[in-house]
């Protein structure tokens, strides 16, 4: 396997803003991203959902680009924009024809320098966010399962365990003063990375970064809540009602080893062995062979994109004629087999080929058909903010390809234990009761 050599320029402006440039002139399109090192995990107590609500506010106007202008300027340049809030980062990104690069940087610079929003904007976006929560969670079968149901069961530290989309009461309590404080605290250049990928000239891109971001003053280093979890000593279980869907569901999450350790590389390949689509052991056993489950999927979500406690999570919807305990026993049998027998050399070889192939695809695409290089952008951003090492995109694959069979069996034994897991049961409510209500 030849080593990857994606050309990458990285530097730091005087105000602490990291700048990462990855030129590639295949298509006349440039992807720009700004990542801030702030996510769900770090939002203030009593303000659940705030990091995400704040992300919406970043589209509501800045000093020189009032409300509607952000969206209008990007769309009318022939591009798309969006943002997303994750556990440890929040991103804002645009894909545009490359002739719009300077305009995009002006806009991102303007909102990093001076967010300008009012009470009306906040009320408007609070309403929008509530409809987002309804359409994705409250009014959908299995909405938010398990990503919202699991944390309060699995974790004890509020940073990891609260409702990331936000309780409506907390959203209602959020004030303009909170918005301003959050902006001043976390949205400082020294807590961010600017990325430019695709059809750019690195020298020009660097000069533009200096021009539009260089004079934004650095802020105090933001305080970070400690996401450390107290040691877990026994299996944790929780129960949630399913209001719409007809099938009983469960999610089983195992806490992962420390990021970028040999155990972590092995665990990620083990995850592939277990959850790798229709060839994965869990789907094969529960859906194809024993036919207990209708769906059995999951795994490590966004493998490089977190910087605190995280899990490998299996999501199962099983047939009503099986009990939850029977379904769980079937899963346990799959896990026990790996613990007792390990995996074969041929299986490991297959897993590595598939992992390499998937990794290439991650670099090329990653978010819909209209956000080229999202995957590469995301990796570069996380490796910069968490590891201070953007060039890891070219070498991280080697860690996975070096994993040995014994290491996979060892992590299966060490991590796939009841006292390292949490289970959420999501059970359909009684239909007759619902009709009567």
């Amino acid at each position, binding site marked *: 396997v030849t080593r990857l050599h994606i050309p990458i320029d990285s530097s730091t402006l005087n105000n602490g803003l990291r700048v990462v440039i990855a030129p590639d002139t295949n298509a006349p399109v440039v992807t720009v991203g700004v990542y801030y090192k702030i996510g769900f995990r770090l939002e203030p107590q009593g303000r659940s959902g705030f990091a995400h609500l704040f992300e919406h506010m970043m589209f509501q106007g800045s*000093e020189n680009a009032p409300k509607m202008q952000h969206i209008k300027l990007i769309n009318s340049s022939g591009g798309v924009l969006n943002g997303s809030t994750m556990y440890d980062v929040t991103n804002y990104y645009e894909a545009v024809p490359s002739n719009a690069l300077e305009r995009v940087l002006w806009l991102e610079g303007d909102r990093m320098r001076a967010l300008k929003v009012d009470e009306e904007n906040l009320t408007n976006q609070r309403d929008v966010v509530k409809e987002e929560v309804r359409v994705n969670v409250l009014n959908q079968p299995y909405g938010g399962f398990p990503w919202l149901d699991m944390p309060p069961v699995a974790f004890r530290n509020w940073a990891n365990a609260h409702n990331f989309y936000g309780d409506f009461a907390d959203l209602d309590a959020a004030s303009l003063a909170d918005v301003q404080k959050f902006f001043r605290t976390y949205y400082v250049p020294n807590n961010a990375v600017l990325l430019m990928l695709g059809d750019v000239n690195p020298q020009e891109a660097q000069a533009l970064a200096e021009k539009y971001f260089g004079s934004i003053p650095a802020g105090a280093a933001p305080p970070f809540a400690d996401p450390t979890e107290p040691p877990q000593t026994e299996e944790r279980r929780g129960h949630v009602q399913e209001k719409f869907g007809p099938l009983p569901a469960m999610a089983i999450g195992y806490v992962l080893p420390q990021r970028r350790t040999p155990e972590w590389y092995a665990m990620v390949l083990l995850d592939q062995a277990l959850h790798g689509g229709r060839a994965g052991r869990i789907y094969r056993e529960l859906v194809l062979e024993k036919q207990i489950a209708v769906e059995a999927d999951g795994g490590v979500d966004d493998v490089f994109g977190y910087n605190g406690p995280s899990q490998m999570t299996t999501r199962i919807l099983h047939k009503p004629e099986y009990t939850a305990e029977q379904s769980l026993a079937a899963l346990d049998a799959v896990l026990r087999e790996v613990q007792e027998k390990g995996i074969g050399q041929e299986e490991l070889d297959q897993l590595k080929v598939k992992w390499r*192939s998937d990794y*290439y695809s991650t670099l090329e695409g990653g978010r819909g058909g209209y956000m080229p290089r999202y995957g590469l952008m995301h990796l570069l951003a996380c490796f910069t903010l968490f590891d201070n090492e953007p060039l890891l995109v070219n070498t991280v694959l080697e860690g996975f390809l070096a994993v040995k069979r014994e290491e996979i069996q060892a992590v299966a034994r060490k991590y796939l234990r009841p006292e390292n897991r949490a289970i959420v049961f999501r059970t359909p409510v009684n239909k007759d009761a619902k009709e009567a209500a």
Partner: protein
Amino acid sequence: MATRAPQTAPAVPALAPERAVTWPKRTRARLSNGLEVVLAEAHSIPKFHGELFFRAGEALVSDRSVGLAEMTSTVLRTGTAKRNSRQIEEDLRRLGADLGTSAGQDTSAISFAGLSEFAEPLLELVNELARDASFPQPEFERERRQKLEEVKLERTSPGFLAGERLRKILFGKHPYARISPTEQQVAAYRREDLEQVYREIYTPENALLVMVGDFDPQNMLGIAEKTFGNWTGKKPAAQQATALPELHGRRVYLVHNPGSVQTQILVGCHAITRKHPDWIRLGLTNSLYGGAFNSRLVMNIREEKGYTYSPRSGISPLRQHGYFFVSAAVRNEVVAASLTEIFYELDKLRSVAVPAAELSDAQNYVTGMFSMGLATQEGLLSQFATVELNELPADYLETYRDKVRALTSADLLGAARKYFDSANMPIVVVGDRAQIEEQARLFGDTEVYNAQGERVE
């Protein structure tokens, strides 16, 4: 305001000169057995993407049962004369490949992507699935049971219930009206039905193979000929056209979804196919109405009023007929207010010419988005396939941007008047009846359905 350093307002930087948009050269060929092949190089990653399309799907066979073509595609990947289900999945993993099988109304397809170094064995597996699928009885029975659960589950999704109802209204007796089978229909599927569908649809004369990626086209063409060249089979018989129902006036179709905490609105009307000469101007008109974040509908009911998170409009271009739709999930208290705005924006486009600046913004958006597909193998594949499957002109991709740029406000006004038939649009609302019925009835005579799709009033 969280302003830091006071700044004088700089002007928005102008757009730099545009870089040329160049679509990769396509190699088009017909194999000795009649199979059409389109190939293009794209060296972004050491992989390639491919799709083997068959020009028929549910619509061709829906008089036998609903969902048969999809069920055929599902069971297709579970066994061939040479490999069982487990071998197929492990072989894919060995090649670093992904494979999907699917069927829509007008096409069935086997899509695949894998490492270029393993192109030959991956194509051999695709070939086996296309020609020698064995439809093992136990695999068929398992997939049928899975489908039964899926059919029950989809009836709990507001989006599904709205789409199902609108399609029935717009397409009446046409196959496009049937988007999903009933439990009884699924229970009655037989393995022989799938084999019959497979024999009719999956033939080289009916197929199109598109591949894009890190390969040499001549070399890849050689592999394709070697792999697929001796496969034989005819096109299926063409099907008779069915007339669509005529829609008069505004009627409301309320689907009662007990316990709903939000209302899914879906409004629509007949439109056109991609082949129609008005496609490009209708597309631009739609993008201005509700097809972009910056569109009038999104600005109105999301950014100004906060009624909804994800409003949008679009044109679904099925092969025989297209349809226009407007969709929004809104809070229960503002169902009537949202519908009022949806129709207000439609009627405004029908009555007042679009200002020049807004037209030019929309033209930039549509042409820019069209070029985004250039950056990925999948994006390229999708564009090439669209051209071929819809029998669009060979220079469609190269001339599209100029055609969009040539459109005038008068063209858009004409398109809105012709296709946004707001006075005769059916309105579907899915939600809790007690909370929304009064508002819904303001917009027309109302039929009420349950979540099983049965009319209750």
